[in-house]
């Protein structure tokens, strides 16, 4: 259990550092999702399952979806639609 906890904490640190070093915003958001998932497991180990549920739903789910949508709005992510639009232009 102790080794698992240390491994998870190390993973958190790696995630936090690699968010700032990744060049693409999309990759940053995906790493942030991974951070939230690991954080949820750590909450579970720390015996607060209610926080784990909330972290899983809000941190890994809703926040990253909102970030994805924002990236799409500022045209940082390419979709089929935007490519078609560009071709038309």
């Amino acid at each position: 259990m102790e080794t698992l906890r240390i491994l998870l904490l190390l993973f958190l640190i790696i995630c936090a550092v690699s968010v700032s070093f990744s060049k693409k915003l999309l990759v940053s958001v995906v790493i942030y999702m991974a951070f939230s998932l690991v954080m949820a497991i750590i909450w579970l180990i720390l015996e607060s399952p209610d926080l784990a549920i909330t972290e899983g739903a809000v941190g890994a789910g809703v926040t990253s979806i909102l970030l994805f949508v924002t990236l799409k709005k500022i045209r940082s992510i390419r979709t089929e639609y935007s490519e078609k639009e560009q071709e038309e232009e």
Partner: protein
Amino acid sequence: MSKRNPDYENSFWQKFAMWCSGDYDPAKGKFEMKKPGQKSKGPNIIGKLMHILAQEESIYASERDKNLRTFNRFYIIVSVALGFLLTILLLVTVSQLPRFGDANAPENNEVARRYIEKGLEETGAVNIVAGMILDYRAFDTFGESCVLFVASCCVLMLLKEKKPEPEKRYDPVNSAILQPAARILVPIIIIFGIYVILNGHISPGGGFSGGAIIGTGFILYQTAFGFEKTGKFLSEKFIKVITVLALSFYCFAKSYSFYTGANHLHSVITPGTPGAILSAGLIVYLNICVGIVVACTMYSFYAAFRRGSF
């Protein structure tokens, strides 16, 4: 008899009444934004601009480069130093915190003891956390729900688009994974959310967690099947009405409970048998209210960010 103001047309109250009915806008002509300039019709303007920029570049290049380089070096040094300082400060603070589970720690005072010893008896909630946040500190939670509601209103105000864009853009992508997965997952997610809300006073979880789970379920449904199908059961008006109803029920129910409790009056709300699904007084209903508010807020955030309307 009231005296007639001869200058009634220009009086303050007349203007106020007109402002209320929408005929008069005191800010008109003061805060209006200028229309963005016409798009450049050819390479002419851009060429001129480039020319000017190039001229400036040649004049200031050497001087600015030197300044820029010194600024960059300064910036790197200061940011690294600040980062180290903050890290050391936080590590020192953490090392001086009382040990986990220390009996003499300042947070182990009579308030926490009261919650742990008398919580079950006074609130009837097996889950102590639910008993605390929805009974002893219910008005905190009410404030939080109101903050969520106000936040969703503000997001809608900022991002609302008057003319909905062509509907085709928001049609979901037909894929072999998304629709079948959503068809199986959405009911499970929503039922799990309802389970978490209804068992908030018995098992871990509660209104906020369950509401967030239901909200993600709605978002998944929208992503897979589009705004048209989601709008059939989650229209803007429905979300507004149900959120306001939930918040006002919360406010009145908890006001009643606090009023009778503070004045030692007889209250119809009883803790009931701990562990039963309909026990713990108001906590179940308050959990449902908080869950409704959170789920609607999550979905309306997503809808506002995605399309600007529901």
